[in-house]
Structures are given as structure tokens and as C-alpha cells.
């Protein structure tokens, strides 16, 4: 009798603990979700309501109130596009090599370690490297070109890994049926593999683009904290302060009286654009998925 009672008490405790555990996990999960939503709303709500169209395209002020972010916003997009133009072909090429061609040997292993290693290199080190290379070795100073190339190097490992993973996820049958029709490897990759892996690759590009858009350490050290002072300056050798760096500059060094408000608005624009990049680049993914479902 006693034994039976003790066991049932033990059982009750275990089940009570189980209930408590479940509750705690739910609490952590729900709190995390609420926290993330709160974070996003805080950033956007602080800046977006005060945002005006004029702020987005007018020039920043050095001393007076009412400066905008025109040139730095332009530089952000300009450097981002240049860096993607440089890194997408190489990153996707490397990903295709690793997924399709790489033999199982030590050299391939070395490349893999390098890709992972490069992915974990802190961004400030890419900045220092770009600085040593462009500012001191090539002696061109802090420029848009230096920023774009350094940023491209930062993107490379992300693009390579995502490409490799999405290609590996393609069912083997798809590829084999193309080979059976007599296609060469290049034809298979061009007409079967890349279209099938397309959505994964685009997601990877959007991740890399979002990260690159908000990157500040690299740009700070390679493109500087100043801009050429006019809009639509496509010169690759102009100084290239981006929006993310501008937020840093405004917060730490600027002496304009409305620095706080400019910082709030810049932060909101930064996050808004990153969210937009994530969203916009998913549209082709949706379209593509629909095509492959048929």
C-alpha cells in the first residue's frame, strides 16, 4: 500500500513538473515573439512618423537643423549594388563548383574550410583589410570603390554557402533525366540546376544584400565618414559614407542640434529598407515556386 502511494505521489510530481515545464517553454516562446515585435515597432515608430520625402533626398547639414540624408542614402544603394555585382557571379560560381564539380579530396576540404572561415571572419577585419589594400597599398583613399570591393568580399561566403546548399537540395532524378537526354554538364546546370535552385539562391542574395546594406564597420574603414556633398555622384573615387555609417557619425560626432531626430529617422529608414529588401527579393521566389509546382 505504502509503496503504491509513494509511486502515485511521484507520478503526480512528475506530471506537475511536466505541466510547469510546458508552461515555461510557452512563456519563453511567446515572450520572445512579443519582444521581437516590440523591437521592430520601437525602431520604426520612433522614426517613420517624422519622416518626410524631403529628408530622404536633401543634403545633410553640418551645423544647422533640418539636414537630410540624400547622398548617404544614394551611396548605400550604390555601394550595395556594386558589391552585389562583384560578389554574385563569384559567389554563385564557387557554390556551383562545390556542389557540382568538387571531387572528394583534400583540396576541396581546404576550400570548404576557407568558405566557413571567411564566413566567420569579423566584419571589422574585412574593413581593416580593405583599408590596408585600398588606402595604403593602392593609395586611393577612402572611396566608394574600396567600400564596394570590401563589402563584396564580406558577401562572398554567404552567397557561396547558400548556392551550394540550394543546389544540393535538388532531387537527383531531375538532373539524371537531363543527362539521359544527352545534355552536357553545363547544359544541365544552366537549364535544370540553376532554375530549380533559383528560389534558394535568391533568398541567399536577399540575406546577403540585407546584411550588406546595414553593414557599417567595413564601410567606415574603407569608404569613410564623408560624402561628396551632392546627389547622384556616380564617381567610384568619391568618399562613400552610407546611411549606416551616417547613423554612427550623427550619434558620435555630429554637432547639429537635431542629431537625435536625424538618428531616429535614419535608423527607421535603415530597418525599413532591410525589411523591404527581404520582401522584394522574395517575389521572384514565389513566382518561381508556383512555376515548379505545376
Amino acid at each position, binding site marked *: 500500500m505504502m509503496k503504491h502511494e509513494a509511486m502515485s505521489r511521484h507520478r503526480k510530481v512528475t506530471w506537475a513538473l511536466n505541466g510547469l515545464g510546458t508552461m515555461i517553454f510557452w512563456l519563453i516562446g511567446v515572450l520572445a515573439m512579443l519582444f*521581437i515585435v516590440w523591437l521592430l515597432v520601437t525602431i520604426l515608430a520612433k522614426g517613420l512618423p517624422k519622416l518626410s520625402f524631403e529628408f530622404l533626398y536633401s543634403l545633410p547639414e553640418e551645423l544647422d537643423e533640418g539636414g537630410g540624408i540624400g547622398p548617404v542614402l544614394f551611396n548605400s544603394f550604390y555601394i550595395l549594388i556594386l558589391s552585389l555585382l562583384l560578389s554574385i557571379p563569384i559567389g554563385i560560381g564557387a557554390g556551383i563548383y562545390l556542389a557540382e564539380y568538387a571531387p572528394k579530396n583534400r583540396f576541396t576540404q581546404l576550400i570548404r574550410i576557407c568558405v566557413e572561415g*571567411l564566413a566567420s571572419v569579423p566584419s571589422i577585419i574585412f574593413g581593416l583589410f580593405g583599408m590596408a*589594400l585600398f588606402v595604403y597599398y593602392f593609395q586611393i583613399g577612402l572611396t566608394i570603390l574600396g567600400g564596394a570591393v570590401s563589402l563584396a*568580399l564580406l558577401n*562572398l561566403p554567404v552567397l557561396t554557402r547558400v548556392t551550394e546548399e540550394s543546389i544540393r537540395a535538388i532531387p537527383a532524378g531531375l538532373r539524371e533525366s537531363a543527362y539521359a537526354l544527352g545534355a552536357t554538364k*553545363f547544359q544541365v*546546370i544552366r537549364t535544370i540546376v540553376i532554375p530549380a535552385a533559383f528560389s534558394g539562391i535568391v533568398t541567399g542574395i536577399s540575406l546577403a544584400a540585407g546584411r550588406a546594406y546595414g553593414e557599417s564597420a567595413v564601410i567606415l574603414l574603407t569608404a569613410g565618414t564623408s560624402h561628396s556633398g551632392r546627389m547622384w555622384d556616380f564617381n567610384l573615387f568619391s568618399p562613400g559614407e552610407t546611411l549606416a*555609417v551616417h547613423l554612427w557619425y550623427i550619434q558620435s560626432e555630429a554637432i547639429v542640434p537635431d542629431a537625435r531626430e536625424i538618428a531616429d529617422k535614419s535608423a527607421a529608414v535603415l530597418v525599413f529598407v532591410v*525589411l523591404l529588401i527581404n520582401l522584394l527579393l522574395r517575389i521572384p521566389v514565389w513566382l518561381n515556386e508556383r512555376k515548379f509546382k505545376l
Partner: protein
Amino acid sequence: MTSIKETHLIQERPPVTRHSRRSTWLKINDRLFKYTTWISASLLMITLAAIILFIAKTGFLVFGDVSVVDFFFSAEWAPDEEKYGSAIFIFGTLALTLLTLLIATPISVGIAVFMAEIAPERLKRALNSLLNLLVGIPSIVYGYLGLTVLLPFLRKVTGQPLADGLLASAIVLAIMVLPTITTISSDAISFVPREYREAAYGLGATRLQTIIYIILPAARNGIISAIILGMARALGETMAVVMVIGNVAQWPNGLFTPTAVLTSNIVMQILNVQYDSTWNYALYMMAFILLIISLFLIILIRLMRPKGV
């Protein structure tokens, strides 16, 4: 004999048609493409090698003016007086990383368990997208939020006059590494075979017991990899930390003392120094330390992975 065979062959050779020209072209294309992808992959290797080389080459110059012992173990960082001891920054980086992981790991693993084991499918997907959004927020914005939201909050709660220092930085970093640790751990938990769970339930275990005694141990390697990856990210994070750490080269004798870490010190000073100065070399050496630690962490993760994956 051979000559007959050869003439025979010559006679048999098909005329050059559009088709065969096309197939030669296809072969060339095939080769060209393969070499292009090979060059792309090699470029990544060259990039990493060039980065290590450049940082090391500049960094090691510091030992021409400063002794190795002084650089690593002296706490006196006073470039104006030619004193380049970086012990405070090295210690700061290690302490900050540890504190970050102490805060982030339990929460992240908790969310991961919730995502993989408990949450209904819809909630799981929503949580996943929210975590992806969290990854997308630029580090400078985290720093800015730390400065404008977290620091005032900490000041109110603790009564500290400034509140910048290790704790504020660790909280900001914990939020930043949370998605990394959570998503990778959650994947590792999902990979635990179904049979393990069923066996545990079959023996009468509750879900909590199954999670603690079966699932978490089985997913241990994946979770540890996730934590190491989070660590690598925390080590190298610069712009978020620099805004809340205080940037004073002094020992942190508490969680709220303004101090400095390797990354924050580099970014605060690098733009104002001469390239061929000991000061600059010292900063590159600090970067080299960071680089070596993060590469070491990646090799550690590779070693933990089962062979052939």
C-alpha cells in the same frame, strides 16, 4: 595493316556538319564553365589567405617596438607614451563573450525547444520569420537602440549614473546572437530521430523528461556548434558594442564600469592613426588575435561534426 586501317578511318570520318560543330562548341563551353567555377572557388581561398597575410604582416610589426610580453600582459594602453599593452582589451573581449553566452544560451535553447517540440506548426513558422527579421536588423541599429533605450532603462533600474559597460554590451550582443543559436539548435533538435521520442514516451516518460533526458543530450553536438557560432559572432561584433561599452581603457571592476574590447578599441582609433606607426601596428595585431580566435572556433565546429557530413 596500319596504313589500311588509317585510310579506312579517314574515309569513315563524317563530314563536318552543323551538328558536330555544335557538339564541339558545347564541349568547350562545358570545360570553360567548369574552370570558371573552379576559379571562383579558388578566389575565396585567395581572399582568406590575403586577409590573414595582410593583417598578420602589419600586425607583427608591432613587436619591433613592443615586447611580446608587454603587448599581451601589460594593461597599460597609452599610445601617447608609447605604451601598448592590450591585456584589458583581450580580457574585455573574453569576459564580454562569456557574459553574452551566459545570457543568450538558456533563452535561445529554450526558444529552440519550444519551436521544435512544443509550438504548433503555424506559431513555429511565425517565430521563425520573426527570428529572421531579427537577423536582418543592422548592428549599428542595435547599438543605437542600446544607447537610446537600454542604457536609460538600466540607469533607472540600477541607479548607475552612466550604466555603460559589460552588462549593457552583453545584453545587446545576446539579442544579436539569439537568432543564430536558436535556429541552429532548433534544427539540431528536429534532427533527433522520431524513434527516440517514441521509445521515451513508451516507457511512460513525460514530455519534459523526454526533452531533458533524451532530446537535448541527443542534439548536444548541434547545440554546442550553435553556441560556438554565436560566440564567433559575439567576438567580432563591433558597431553595436562600441556604442554601449564606454570606450575607456580600464579594467572592468564591475558590470557597469566603462571599459573597452578589442573590436571597439580598433574602430575608435584606427581612423586617427598614421599607417606606419606602432599604434597602427598594435591595432592590426589586435585584429589578428580576433581573426585567429574566430578561425579556431570554425575548425572546432568542423572537428565536432560527424565524419562524412
